[in-house]
Structures are given as structure tokens and as C-alpha cells.
């Protein structure tokens, strides 16, 4: 059970865990990759939609068309043919509803070959007014008003047109809308161009026509105007678009993924754009499939490993150091990976937070600029109030006459009216043509005010209105529906009014001071001028600040005196912001540097928008610092892990290797196997124990050498006989006994014995036998009594029975006789010179069993020349091969038969090799001893 859990744990930690975490990590990476791709696709699609929305809005489309055309024309000023070509190309782009009128340096219309736009006379007159050519006469505006209105719709007055130089002037004429564009080549020149487009293309037409050609084929697109249920333009199936738009609207999200495509809506002022691009998931699915397959394979391998019996970690040799390192790395790998992942997530979050904070900061800053525009209104009020008090409180019309033109000149007002109590103007200051066409109404209204508010004064002072106010207009002014009522009820304030296309701030106030001629003061300021004044100042002020701020004029599509920002990226960003009406934050590069740009569409300031650039390094540096910190943390953790591993090696591995070294030496029976471990922990103790152990082993070593001394040290030279002895102890000390003693010149005693068991106790027994034999021989041998003697000695000395088998052999060289007594020993073999062998089956009681008075069985052999007596201990035949097979007698006989004719030493060698090969690396269980006596005399006669 324990091992099963251990196995499970190992497989879990080294198999499942890395595999699982790798799998999870890979999956996370895939998901990340997917979401990143998705995010890129989304932002790309959004930008594409913005680009399309921008390009397809008529204003932008025509403006660009104009710009492109004019720049081409400026390049090829001279040739009318080339110009005609350009014109015809533009006409092919946007149809026949396009008229261009060119004027030369004298302000006269130029004729282009093959091109004759309609209404050239009226436009020529218009040009006279606009460029103030020599043909221009004072009051032409009034005279031409009707004609212009017929041509361009009711709104088109010379004044309005004049105010829109270089801008597209949107016009409305009989249900259709159009554009007018005019521009002088330079501020003073009389030459220039007027373009009239009537009616304009609708966005859907632009999309379908000139613009649609450039669209990416993969992009599906639909466009709704706000008031329509069905898309007015679509590429792809309309049904789909309706369905998807419904889905997006009901789910309140701006995007949707359906049918492998990403759908995105963009709400703009002109309508809703719905676009889609394919986001193919194929590769991701493929990758995820591969990942799953890999994971499954890994799992299978682990399952196989886990349930395979032969898998046992214990059998794999791994150095402890490697194990330690591996475990330590596993232990810190998961938290470190967690740290890495959390760290990266945290840092990306931090980056986002920084961005959003930055965005907030910048928005606050830009809002402040916008808010400050209100101050412009206030300063206008202040100026007006000043003027008011100058004129009326101080009764100083002269000062007023001085101040008013200054206000006009400095761009603080466009028109100042001062009306006397009789309804007639005292003074009117007017900046250019802002009010052409409005005077009558203003005049009527001011007189209405005088009459309504100052009637008590006129009565008191007997002043009659010179001209009666029109009762119908009085109705208008009094009616709530027209808003005049509100203006009438709030003197001394700024009113925002829109006269046609002119947005104006209007201040009026009256004075109820008896005796004073003046009655009503009315000041107009164009919001456009006010905005421009203000923004120029704001931008100049911001120069001293940190981040550059710029202003974009959406009407003219230009930057307000800031060339630095005139990069494609900042412009497209600006357009995106204006289109969506929300602040847009993007990373752009301007002037070779990276910036975080925030485009802020002006609300109060429209059509002006603001952009703020912040050096990207502000965020990047902080994020990079955090990344560095994370990397540092990881490095520190890893180095600490390595350091700890090193320490572990020091603390654990060093003693272990030291012990290992000691063990290797011990196995080699090296006496200097002691270890030196300086640790104070268990290892130190272990080292001491080990050293102790080594001492004991050395002791055994010594004992072995002592025991070896008990075996015959030199070969006994027996004339005519050859002997061989072989002894191999199973352990350090053996229990086998083998000896020969030269009794006299002719008699030799040979002994081979085996104490039951082996090891030290056997060795002691054997030593005892040896001593007994020694004494017996010394005292003069009684061969037949010897076994009894030894046996009784053993019995006497050892109360605990130690049995010993022994074969006593007495060789007499004179007659080559060999007397044998067997005390329970294996039967020796007599191998005749002709190869035949004979077992000397001699039985007898082993020594030390009991006192036996009976004379042991005794046999005399005759060793003929070439005959060989082979005696052995049972280890030879009882040897066990690793597979459990036992050697046995039969095999021995076979082998011995082969040895006929060999010298005893060779026989020993042979048998040893046979035995070794049979053992084949197994453990020797018992001591092995062999004793061979061979008659090597040439002839038997010699012996006599």
C-alpha cells in the first residue's frame, strides 16, 4: 500500500503535475493568443469601420475630393485641358451633380474646354461678392440674394458663404441637400474656385459607388440611417444584417461572434454601421486538438507507467543530489509559475490601470479646457457689461464709440448695435458681412424691445418710435414657439442663437435711465470666432505645460496652427473620436516619438476637437520597471533555489557521498574506508556508526588473515605425488578445514573438513580442530584414533554442539596406499588414470556428535599412477545458480571426467571456473574447499 501511494505520489509530482500544468499553461497561452487575436481583429475592424464611416460621410468624402482635386489643379495651374480632364474625372466619381467654376487672376470666369457648368452668370456675380473683385459694388449682396437663394436654397446668403471659405457649406434646397465650396488660391488673390454640388451623394451611394471599390472583399458591411429599420446599404444578405443587429441590440453589446465572424456595430451621427470580418478559429481548434492529443498521450504514458509492475522507482539509480534538486525545483516550480502568471497578469492590469488613470487625467485636463470656454462667454458678458456701463451709467457715449470698434477689431464681437429710444440706431458697428440679410429682423426686434420694455420711458419723455413695429413680427417675438420670448425676458445675458448656419452669442441690455438717449445695446459675437480665439490662447498656454495639446478643426479638416500633429495617425485618431463622439486613447507615433494620444471630441467647442499627447514613456517606464522587478524576483528565486540546492548538497549530499565513498572502499575491503563527516546532525552519527562498522570489518579482515594462516602455507612436496588445495570462504571467515601434515618421510596426513555452518563460529571450531590435529600429530599419530580424539575434544570443549565432517586421509608414498577415514564427509572421488571414476563410499559419524568408542570405518586405497583422489566440501555440489538450479553430483562427475590427465592445480582451476560459471554472479552460500591428491609417478614400479 505504502509503495502504491509512493508510486502515485511520484507519478503525480513528476508526471501528472508537470503535464497538467504544461497543459493548462499551453491552454492558457492558446486562450490568450485567441483573445489577443480577437482583440486585434476587433480593434482593426473598429478602425476599419471608423475609416469607412468617416470616408462615407458626405462631408468628409467631398472634402477630400475637393482637396485632392484642388491640389492637382494647383500643380497644373496653367493648362485648361488638364483641368478639364481632372474635372471630368471627378465627375465620373460623383456624378453629374457637380459644377466647378474657375476664376482667373482678374476675377473673371475661366472656360474649360468641353465643360460648361450651368448658372455661370450667378456664380460669377457671387464670385464678385466673395472675392470683392473690381466689379463688386456695395450692396451687391442684397441685390443678388434672391438669385442665390434660387440657385442654392434659402439659407445661402453671401455672408454665410463668405464665412465658409475653404469649408464645405452644407445647403438645403427643395428637399435636397448640397454643398458649396469656395476658395481663393491665396488670401489676396482674385483667382479661385467655386464648387457646387447638388444634390450630394448619400453615404450608401458613396459606399456603393466610389468608395466601395476600395473595400476589402472579406468585409461585410451594412449601414442604417437612424430612422430606418432596413439597412440602406449592405454587402451580404440583408436578412442576416437585420437579425444580427437585433441580436447586438438586445444583448447590449457592441460586438458579437457568429458563424466564425466577428460583428461590430459603430454608432455615428449619420447612422449605424455593422461590419464583420472572418475570425477563423481553425488554427486554434487545430492547435487545441493537438494539445489535447499530446495531453492524452502523456496521460496514457503515465497510466502505463503507473500500472506497470516493472516500474519501480526504487530500482532506478538516481543520485540523491539529483533527486533533491528535482524535488526542490518541483516544489518551487509551481509557485514560481504562479508568480510569473500572476505577475504578468498583474502588470498588464497595472498597465491598463495606468492607461485608464492617464485617460482620466487627460480627460479632466481637456474637459477643463472645454469648461473654460464658458469663461469666454463670461468674458464676453463682462466686456458687454463694461460697455453697457460705459455707455449708460456714465452717460459717456463718446467712450462707447471708442471702445466698440476696439471690441470688433480684437475679435470680441462681430456686431454692436446701439438703439435710441425712438427705435433708430445711434451707432452700428459691424464686422464684415456676418449680418447681411439679418438687419431687418434685428432692427425689428430691437424696436420691439424698446417698445415693450421702455414704453414707460418713451411715454415719459414723449419719444415716438420713428417706425411702427410690425404687429405680425411682434407676434413672433412674443410667441414662445420662436424662443424670442425667452430672450426678451433675459437681458444682460448671453444667448446662444443660431441664425441659419451662424452660431452666435447674443447679448442685449436696456437702460432705463431718464434723459439718456440710448435704449438698447445689442452685441453679437460669432461663436466660431470666440472658439478660435479661445483655443488659440488655450493652446498657447498649454505650451508651458507638460503635454502638447493641439486643436483639430473638423470643418476645415486641419490642425489649428500646429504642424507637429499633422500625421496620419493623429488625424485618423481624431476622426475616430469625432465620429464616435467619445474620447479615444491610442498609441501613435508623431515626430519620431511614441505618444499616448487622447483625442477628445469637442462638445461645446465643436467643430473643434482637442488632442493631447502624453509621452508614452510615462507608462512604459513604470510597466517596464515592474517587469524588471518580476524578472528580478524570478531570477532571485531561481538563484535562491540553486543556492539552497547547493546548501542541500553541502548538508546532505556531502555526507552521503562520503558514506558512499566509504562503502565502495568497504566493498573493496579497503582498510582505510573510514569516513570523515563534520555534520552535527544524523549524518554525523551515521558517520560514526559507519566508522565503527568499518572497524569491525577490519577486525574480520584480520581474523581472515589469521585463519588463512591455519591453512597450509606452502605446497607439500611429495615425491611422485602432486597435490592441490583450494579454499574459498563464503564470508570472511570460513568453516572449512583443509590441511596436510607431513608425519614423516613417507607418511602424509591429509585432512578436509567442513564445520556445520560457516562464519566465525565455524572458524573457531575449525581452529580448534586444527589445534587438535596439530597436537595429535605432534604426539605421534594414531590415524585410526584421530577422529575419536578430535570428536571428543569438540564434545568436551563445546557444550553447544558444533558438528564437523572430516575426511582423514593418510598417504603412504611407499606403497602408494591411501588410508581413508570418513567422518560424515562427502565421499571423495577416485579418478583413475584411464578416466574412470569411483566414489569412495565410506560412511562415518561426523565429529562432535557423540563420543563413539567404535573404531571408525577404515579403508585403504591404492593410488595407481595417474590416479587422482578428488575430495571436496559440499559447497561444490550444492551451489545454486541464480535461477535456483542446484549443481548436483552428476554434473560434477561429468566435469571431473573431463579433467583426467590434468595436474591437480589445473583440475582445481577447471573446477573453479566451472563452479564460478555455474554460480554466474550469484552469492556464494558456503565455503568451497577442494583437495586433490594425484599420483604422478611414471610407473608404479618406481614407487617401491
Amino acid at each position, binding site marked *: 500500500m505504502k509503495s502504491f501511494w509512493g508510486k502515485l505520489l511520484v507519478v503525480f509530482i513528476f508526471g501528472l503535475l508537470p503535464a497538467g500544468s504544461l497543459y493548462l499553461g499551453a491552454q492558457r497561452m492558446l486562450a490568450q493568443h485567441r483573445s489577443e487575436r480577437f482583440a486585434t481583429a476587433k480593434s482593426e475592424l473598429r478602425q476599419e469601420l471608423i475609416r469607412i464611416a468617416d470616408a462615407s460621410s458626405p462631408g468628409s468624402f467631398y472634402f477630400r475630393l475637393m482637396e485632392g482635386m484642388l491640389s492637382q489643379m494647383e500643380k497644373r495651374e496653367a493648362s485648361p485641358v488638364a483641368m478639364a480632364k481632372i474635372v471630368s474625372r471627378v465627375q465620373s466619381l460623383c456624378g453629374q451633380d457637380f459644377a466647378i467654376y474657375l476664376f482667373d487672376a482678374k476675377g473673371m470666369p475661366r472656360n474649360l474646354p468641353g465643360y460648361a457648368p450651368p448658372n455661370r452668370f450667378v456664380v460669377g456675380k457671387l464670385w464678385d461678392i466673395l472675392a470683392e473683385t473690381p466689379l463688386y459694388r456695395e450692396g451687391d449682396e442684397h441685390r443678388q440674394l434672391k438669385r442665390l437663394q434660387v440657385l442654392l436654397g434659402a439659407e445661402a446668403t453671401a455672408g454665410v458663404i463668405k464665412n465658409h471659405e475653404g469649408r464645405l457649406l452644407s445647403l438645403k434646397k427643395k428637399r435636397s441637400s448640397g454643398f458649396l465650396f469656395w476658395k481663393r488660391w491665396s488670401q489676396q488673390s482674385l483667382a479661385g474656385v467655386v464648387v457646387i454640388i447638388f444634390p450630394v451623394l448619400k453615404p450608401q451611394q458613396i459606399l456603393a459607388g466610389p468608395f466601395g471599390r476600395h473595400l476589402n472583399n472579406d468585409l461585410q458591411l451594412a449601414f442604417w440611417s*437612424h430612422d430606418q429599420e432596413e439597412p440602406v446599404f449592405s454587402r451580404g444578405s440583408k436578412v442576416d444584417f437585420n437579425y444580427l443587429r437585433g441580436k447586438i441590440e438586445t444583448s447590449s453589446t457592441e460586438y458579437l461572434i457568429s458563424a466564425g465572424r466577428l460583428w461590430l456595430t459603430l454608432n455615428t451621427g449619420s447612422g449605424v454601421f455593422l461590419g464583420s470580418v472572418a475570425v477563423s478559429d481553425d488554427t486554434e481548434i487545430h492547435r487545441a486538438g493537438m494539445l489535447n492529443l499530446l495531453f492524452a498521450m502523456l496521460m496514457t504514458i503515465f497510466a502505463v507507467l503507473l500500472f506497470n509492475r516493472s516500474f519501480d522507482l526504487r530500482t532506478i539509480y538516481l543520485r540523491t543530489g539529483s533527486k533533491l534538486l528535482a524535488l526542490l525545483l518541483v516544489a518551487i516550480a509551481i509557485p514560481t509559475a504562479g508568480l510569473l502568471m500572476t505577475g504578468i497578469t498583474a502588470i498588464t492590469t497595472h498597465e491598463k490601470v495606468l492607461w485608464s488613470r492617464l485617460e482620466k487625467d487627460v480627460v479632466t485636463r481637456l474637459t*477643463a479646457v472645454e*469648461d473654460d470656454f464658458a469663461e469666454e462667454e463670461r468674458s464676453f458678458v463682462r466686456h458687454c457689461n463694461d460697455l453697457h456701463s460705459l455707455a449708460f451709467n456714465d452717460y459717456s457715449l463718446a467712450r462707447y464709440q471708442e471702445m466698440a470698434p476696439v471690441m470688433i477689431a480684437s475679435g470680441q464681437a462681430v456686431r454692436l448695435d446701439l438703439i435710441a429710444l425712438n427705435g433708430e440706431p445711434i451707432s452700428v458697428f459691424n464686422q464684415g458681412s456676418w449680418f447681411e*440679410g439679418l438687419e431687418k429682423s434685428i432692427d425689428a426686434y430691437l424696436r420691439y424691445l424698446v417698445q415693450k420694455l421702455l414704453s414707460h420711458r418713451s411715454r415719459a419723455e414723449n419719444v415716438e418710435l420713428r417706425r411702427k413695429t410690425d404687429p405680425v413680427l411682434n407676434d413672433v417675438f412674443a410667441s414662445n414657439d420662436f424662443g424670442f420670448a425667452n430672450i426678451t425676458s433675459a437681458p444682460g445675458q448671453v444667448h446662444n442663437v443660431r441664425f441659419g448656419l451662424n452660431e452666435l452669442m447674443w447679448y442685449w441690455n436696456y437702460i432705463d435711465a431718464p434723459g439718456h438717449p440710448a435704449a438698447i445695446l445689442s452685441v453679437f459675437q460669432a461663436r466660431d470666432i470666440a472658439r478660435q480665439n479661445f483655443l488659440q490662447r488655450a493652446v498657447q498656454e498649454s505650451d508651458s505645460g507638460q503635454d502638447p495639446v493641439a486643436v483639430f478643426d473638423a470643418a476645415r479638416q486641419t490642425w489649428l496652427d500646429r504642424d507637429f500633429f499633422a500625421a496620419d495617425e493623429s488625424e485618423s485618431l481624431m476622426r475616430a473620436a469625432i465620429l464616435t463622439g467619445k474620447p479615444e486613447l491610442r498609441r501613435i507615433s508623431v515626430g519620431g516619438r511614441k505618444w499616448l494620444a487622447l483625442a477628445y471630441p469637442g462638445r461645446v467647442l465643436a467643430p473643434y476637437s482637442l488632442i493631447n499627447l502624453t509621452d508614452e514613456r510615462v507608462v512604459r517606464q513604470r510597466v517596464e520597471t515592474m517587469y524588471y522587478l518580476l524578472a528580478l524576483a524570478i531570477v532571485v528565486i531561481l538563484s535562491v533555489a540553486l543556492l539552497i540546492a547547493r546548501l542541500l548538497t553541502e548538508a546532505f549530499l556531502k555526507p*552521503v557521498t562520503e558514506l558512499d565513498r566509504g562503502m565502495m572502499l568497504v566493498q573493496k575491503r579497503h582498510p582505510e574506508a573510514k569516513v570523515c563527516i563534520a555534520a552535527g546532525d544524523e549524518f554525523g552519527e551515521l558517520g560514526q556508526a559507519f566508522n565503527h562498522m568499518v572497524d569491525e570489518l577490519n577486525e574480520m579482515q584480520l581474523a581472515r588473515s589469521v585463519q588463512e594462516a591455519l591453512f597450509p602455507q606452502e605446497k607439500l612436496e611429495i615425491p611422485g605425488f602432486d597435490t592441490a588445495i583450494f579454499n574459498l570462504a563464503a564470508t570472511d*571467515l570460513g568453516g572449512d578445514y583443509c590441511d596436510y601434515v607431513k608425519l614423516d618421510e613417507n607418511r602424509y596426513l591429509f585432512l578436509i573438513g567442513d564445520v556445520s555452518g560457516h562464519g566465525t563460529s565455524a572458524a573457531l571450531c575449525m581452529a580448534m580442530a586444527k589445534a587438535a590435529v*596439530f597436537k595429535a600429530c605432534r604426539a605421534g599419530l594414531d590415524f585410526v584414533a584421530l577422529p575419536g580424539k578430535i570428536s571428543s575434544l569438540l564434545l568436551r570443549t563445546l557444550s553447544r554442539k558444533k558438528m564437523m565432517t572430516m575426511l582423514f586421509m593418510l598417504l603412504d608414498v611407499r606403497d602408494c596406499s591411501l588410508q581413508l577415514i570418513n567422518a560424515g564427509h562427502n565421499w571423495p572421488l577416485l579418478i583413475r588414470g584411464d578416466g574412470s571414476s569411483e566414489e569412495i563410499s565410506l560412511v562415518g559419524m561426523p565429529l562432535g556428535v557423540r563420543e563413539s568408542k567404535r573404531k571408525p570405518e577404515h579403508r585403504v586405497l591404492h593410488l595407481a599412477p595417474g590416479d587422482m583422489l578428488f575430495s571436496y566440501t559440499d559447497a561444490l555440489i550444492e551451489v545454486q545458480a541464480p535461477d535456483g538450479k542446484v549443481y548436483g553430483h552428476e554434473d560434477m562427475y561429468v566435469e571431473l571426467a573431463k579433467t583426467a590427465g590434468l595436474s591437480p592445480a589445473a583440475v582445481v582451476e577447471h573446477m573453479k571456473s566451472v563452479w564460478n560459471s555455474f554460480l554466474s554472479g550469484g552469492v556464494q552460500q558456503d565455503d568451497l574447499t577442494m583437495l586433490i591428491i594425484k599420483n604422478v609417478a611414471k610407473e608404479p614400479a618406481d614407487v617401491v
Partner: protein
Amino acid sequence: MSSEKESSSRGSFFSNFAALALLLLLPVFAIWLLGSAIIAQNSENLRAAGERALDQRAEAISELLEPENFFGLHFRRFYEELYNGEAVTPERVRQLAIEFSARQLGFCPAVFADGKLVTPAELLGEHEVELTDAWEVANKYSRRHTLTSSKYLTRLFGAPYSRMMLFRHEGRIMKFTGYRGDGYIFFQRSPKFAARPEEFPPAGVYIVLWSMPSTTELINFLPNALTTGVHIALRQRAAITRAGDSQLQIVRKKIGEHFLFVSRKFSGFNRTFAQTLLKVFLLFLVMIVAMLAKDGSFFAAMRTASIRSKLIGLILYAVILPLSGLVYFGWKYLAERRELLIQDAWLACQGSINDFDNGFEKDKARMLSLFRSLKEKPDMKADPARLKDKVIRLDLDNVINWLEVRDIDAEVVMTTQRRETAEKIGIIGKAIARLGIHKFLGHRLAGRSQSVKAAEVMVQEFLEGPFGGWARIFESPDELHQVSFGGYEIYWYWDVYNDPGIKAAFIVIDQNVRWAVRNYLAANLIQRVSYGHGAVRLFAWSSVYSELWPGETYSEDELMIFVRQVRRSNGPRNSIIRWNGVDWVAAGAPGKKLVDTVLLSLYPLDEVDREIAIIRSGLIWAVVFALILALLVGSLFSHTIIRPVANLMTGVQALRRRDTSHRLEIWQNDELGRLSATLNATTETLADIISAQAIQAQLIPETAPIIEGFTGDLVYIPAADLGGDYCDFLSLPDGRWLMVIGDVTGHGVSSALVTTMIKAVVTDYAADSNFSLSAMFTCLNELLFSQFRRKKCMTLFAAVINSSTGQIDCINAGHPLPLHFSNDARQQFPQLCRPPLGFSLRNSVFPEATLQMAAGDCLILYTDILIETADSSGKPYGSEGFARLCRKYLHLPPAQMRVGILEEIQSESSGDLDDDLTMIILRRNTATEPV
């Protein structure tokens, strides 16, 4: 030895360095980093909290600085103070007026009781009459003609002023715009009349503030609680100019046309100071650690700590580093994630507001189609006048303000107009129609020009001119136009009919934008349009109708505070507000298309917190998992190291106890596994030796045999398991006793072998009937020499004791001479000095001597350990010393004597004896002594 020392010193340098890095540098560094991060975060948090508090303060201030709120509160307090139970007297009113700074703020508190003015006249000045009039008109007991008064009051307080309006605003501030300018009216009847409105003449207050005080003036009247500790400035410019002082916190608020700057010196947590503290703390830490290190015992204790604690410490150390990083980053992540989520919630809220706002576009489209559909109605075609009923029905839903149908001659066929805006359009309407018909139906007029009155020319000119933006409208019929002029907005629709079969030729419809907005809000908000999967709640506050949609909100006040904030800032605002006892992420913005409306969008903060909780629990699980993993790895560690080592230790301890039955389980195949295997082998060897010990134990008698007339004692203590000493008592066939004591060189197994052999020979001889000591010694000498060739020698002393005579025949081969005590004195022992056995074959004759032991004589035989052992002075005892020791115990019987001697020796000599110890004490009994 020297090289070993060197290597160990090198190792110790490294380990010292590592320990320094791990125990000192790294923790200090980590603490420093973490501490700085926490300090930074904390100071940022504090700063943010300070900014929030400042923001709230600024909100409260700007709330008060709004004149409407200020005076609302001010007048209410005045009212409450006035009717706090005391009698209302002119004196009190005067006092209160001073208390409430009536003169400075410029309001006139007219207090009435029983239909009469209570306020002293000088407080009201020239307004006395006006105020009395106003009060009387309001309560309908005017002394003058009501109509005159009303007209007068209308002039004074502006056209909208009416009794009804006044009552609607009872207890509240009512703004008026009269010919004298703007001001406020606060009107409330006294508490007892509030319940009985119809009773006359009532009492109450009528306060008029004739001119709006500027915000700048109001600043001086702020309650102290709000203004202490902060610097308040009102400026016209919004741009914040930071005067280089980073410790200055500034909050900007928009109040009307001014910007309120509330600034405060940030006086919280000093970052540098905290960092200095941290540095000092770290220095102390370093010092403490250095002191501990210098002490040395610290490191020693670390060195000698058990493997388990070392391992656990190291693993925890290794794991805690990344975990602490994980926790730090996780914590940071959570905080910022929350910020982002709240940001997202704000975005979603703003988005829902935008959506809702833009939804009005659709409503407009619906309105347009409704307007268009009107002219397609069969009624309209047949007889437009019959359309009226339908329109009046529609009008109940407030979808049309004004509808007019005219025929080709611009004569009215049908007209309807809502009562509230009923004003004569008359000639203008005709002019408009005429213009349209002229422009678009010129062919239907068929050359018949309409007669135009002179008055109409002007109007036509006005309309045709660009004034008021009408021109554009007249170019495009059949569209919904938004006409705005002077802050007043309407939707305007008109069309002409081309079909000659239709009688009518011109239709014009208009709708007030405010009403349209109101309809939209009522239709959509009351139906609870929900955004963000229903989590986002939307509210709208109409500033025209002072109404909050949807209406049944629990506590409007909490929302209203936020609404006022939005109104003040006049732009989108984000905040976290508490409403209905729950925190909400709130966004508010003034409607862009939905004019005069403030839109609020609430998202429950709980949702954010729930998401954060999910992430947090994920993080916690990750940490727990990592710890569990570390534990698992620790258990594997113990499998790898600790358990094998512990296993080994138990083995070693078993070995110490000579417990040879203990076998080690081999845990793995590595160095430790091999070590276990070796230990097992050793155990086996030991078992072997222990079994051999049993044999040796049989060779050497445990106790001395009982020899008649003698008392003997024998002790044999082997140094190792097997000893090299030999001693024996053997009875000879002739009744004498053979006593042998010997010492083989060395000890252990090898010596045991020799002793065994000696024993065998000696036994053999002892069995011999003609025993001879010298023969035995010669034999032994030969045996040892022949077998071991001087490798193993033996000292041997043998004696034959004749128990009856007390005669002892001795023979000695190099053994220390026994001590012979007679009459308590050491007797000279015959000098029997021969080389030990097995040393040489020459001189094989060993000296012999005979000793007569008298009764009470004591013979002590011993092996050399007893004289070689160092005594307490560190010098070996020597035979003299040993003799002295023996004499000390001589009076005791041999057994006790032996015990005494051994105890003394063992106590004197420190530690174990490193050689076998054998001692025989033989004493001849005195006659009196019992056996």
C-alpha cells in the same frame, strides 16, 4: 589532513556566504522591497482616501454654494427657528434676521401672524407693501383688488408667478425672474396652518431674496465645519495650476459659472519618514543577525539541527519566496482589477446612459412616422377637419403640441393646440403655409397668385431670411426639424400635398422637445429598460418637472445628491453612492438628446466585489495548492532522504544495541540505499560474531570452579564481542587444578581463533594423565609459531593448584606476573619472564616455579589491561599501582573484591576499556573460613 582542512574551510566559506545571502541579504532585501511597495501603496491609498474625502467635502461645499440649496436650507432653518414654540414677536424676528444675516445676504423676511405683518418695517424697507401684497394675494384676503395686485406681482416676480405655483413650492425655494432681476421666494405657512390650509387669516413667512447673491458672497456664510482645514477658492478658470507643491491636493468643482477649488495640504503619511523607519528597522535587523552570527552558537545550532528541520526550513524558504511574490502581485492585481472593474462598470453605466440617450433618436423616428401617418389617414384625405378627434385623443398622450391643416389658399381647415401653449399663431401660420405652398406647390396654384397683405410681406421676409434658421426648414418638408432658439426647442414638421384631389394642401405639426423627452422617459424608464444583463439600473431626473423616473424609488434623497452633483458639473460624472443601503457604482450625465434631463445609471458594487471574490478565492486556492504541493514534495523528500536516513539511524541504533535481528528495508537505489545494504551486511557479520561469542563463552568459564580450600573468582570482559584473553580452570585427572590465564596479541575474532586453538590444546593436555606444564607450553609454542609465524603471539601463565597442599606450580610465557598477597602484603613473586608463546622456537623451555600458598593468601592473576589503564592522574597504574588497588580490597571475599577493583578502575579511567579484561582471584581459605 591539511588538504581536508583546506577543503572544509573552502566549503565553509561558501556555506558562510550562502548563509549570509539566505539569512541576511535576501530577507533584508525582500523586506525592503516589500516594505517600500507597501509604503508606496499605503501612501497612495491614503492619498486617494484623502482625495476622496476632499472630494466629498468639496461636493458638500458646492452643494451649499448653490444658492438654491443654500437658501433653501437657510430659510428652512430660519423658519424652524422662528416656530420653535416661542411667541412670534417683532423683536424676535429682528433678532433672527440679524442671526441669519438677512441684511448681508439681502433677503427680506416677512413674517405674518393673524393676517398682519410682524416683521419690523425697517427690515423690509421699501418692500413692505409688495410683500404684504404678495402674502395677501397668496392667501386670498387681499385688501386691494386681486387683479391689480396680481398684475403687479407678475411684473415683480415674472410671468410664471401665480398662486398655484407658490403653493406648489411651499416650504421650498421658488425662483423668480422679475423686472428687477432674479431672486428667490420662500413661502411657508406656520406649522399650525399647514394642517388647516383653508383657515384665515393664516400665519407664516414670506421671504424674498431680491437679487441672487453671487457664489463668491455665499462662501462667507458656509458653516465652519465645512471650511476648516481646507482652502477654498472660487475662480473663473477651470485649469488647475499646481504651484509645484506635490503635497497639495486640489479638487475642482463646477458651480454654475464658477469653479470651486478646494485644496488642502496633504498631511498624512510621510513617505520619506516611513522609508527611513524601514531603513532603521533593517539596520537593527542586520545588527541582531550579525550579533547572533558572531555568537557562533546560532550557526552551530543550525548545523546540528536535525535533517528534518533543516529540510523543512529550506523547502519552506524556497517556497515562501515565490509565494510571497505571488501574494504580493496577487494583492496588487486584486486591488487594480477592482479599480478596472469599477472603471468598466462606469463605462457600462455611461454606455447605458448613452444608449438610452441615443434611443431617443428612434423615438424621434417614431414621432416622424406618426406625423407622416397623420396625413395619410383617410380622414385627413376626405375631410381634414375630422382629424381633430383623433388628434385630441393622441394629445392625451402628449405627442402633439400643435397641428394645423390648411388648404391650398393657406386658409385654416383644421387647427388644434394644447392648452398650455395656446398662443395665437395666426398670421404667422398663414405666412408659413403660404411660403411652403408657394415653394412646393407653385404649379397647383396655376398662376393664381395669392393676395398677400402688406403685413405678411414682413413675416415672409423674416421667415425666408436666414434668421432663426427657418430657411433651411422651408427647403425641406416632410422632415422632422428641431428648432432651437434662445434655449427653447421644438420639433417642427410640415408638408404640402401634391395630390390635387386632396383638399388640404399644407400640414404643420410641432411638438415641444421637453414633452417629447418626457414621453420618452415615461414610456421607457417606467417600463424599466435594463442594460448590462439587467444589472444596470437607470434613472432620469427631469429638471423641468423636478421628477425622478422611475418614481417608486425607495429613497430619492440619496440619488438626488448625486443628481445635483451631475447638474452642477454639467458633464458626465462617476461616483460610488449608497442607495437603499447598498453601494452602487453610479454614473450620471446630463442628457445630450434628452434635454433638461439628468440620467443616472447604477450598477451594484456587489457584482464587482463578487467577481473580485472569485479571483481572490482563485488566488487563495493557488496559494493553498502550492503549499499542499510543497508538503507533498516534502513528503517525497522525506521518502528520499529523511526516511532512509531515519531508517539507517534505527539500523545503527539497533547495531549499537547488538540487535542483529533488525534488517533495514532498502528504500531506493541510491547512495543511501547502498549504505543500508552495507549496514545490513555488517549486521550479518555482527550476528555471526555474536553467534561466535556463544562458542567463545563456552571456552571460557563464567565463574571459577569450586576448588576445595580455595575461593576463586574469575572475570572476563571482552573489549569487542570476541576477546583475545584466555583463562581457564581445568581439573586434572589427578585431582589437581590447572589454572590458565593468557592474552593473545590483539583482540577480536583473530585473537579468539587463537584462544580457541590454545583452549583445544590445553584441554587436550588436561585430559592427559601425565600432565606436564612445560610439555604443554612447548606444544603451544610450537603450534603458535608454526601456524602464525609471530603474527599472533600469546602470553600465557599457567598454574597447577594442589588444593590439598596449597602448592602451586607456575609456568609463565611472558604474562604479567600474578600478585601474591600474603598477610595483607604483597609477596615477591618468582621472576618468571619468558617471551610469549609463538614468538620463537628456540628456548622452548619456559621457567617454572612453585609457590606455596598459605591460608588467607591471595593470588591475583590479570591481563595487562589492568596495569596499563590510566588512573585519574592519567598515568598507567603499573603493577605497583594495581597492587595497591588490590590491597585496598584484599579484606573482601574475592567476588566483592573483584567488584570493588573493577568499579574503581572503571570510575578512575574515563571511558571504556579498549582491551579485554581478565582477572582471576584465588584465595586460600583460612581454616575458619567456611567454603
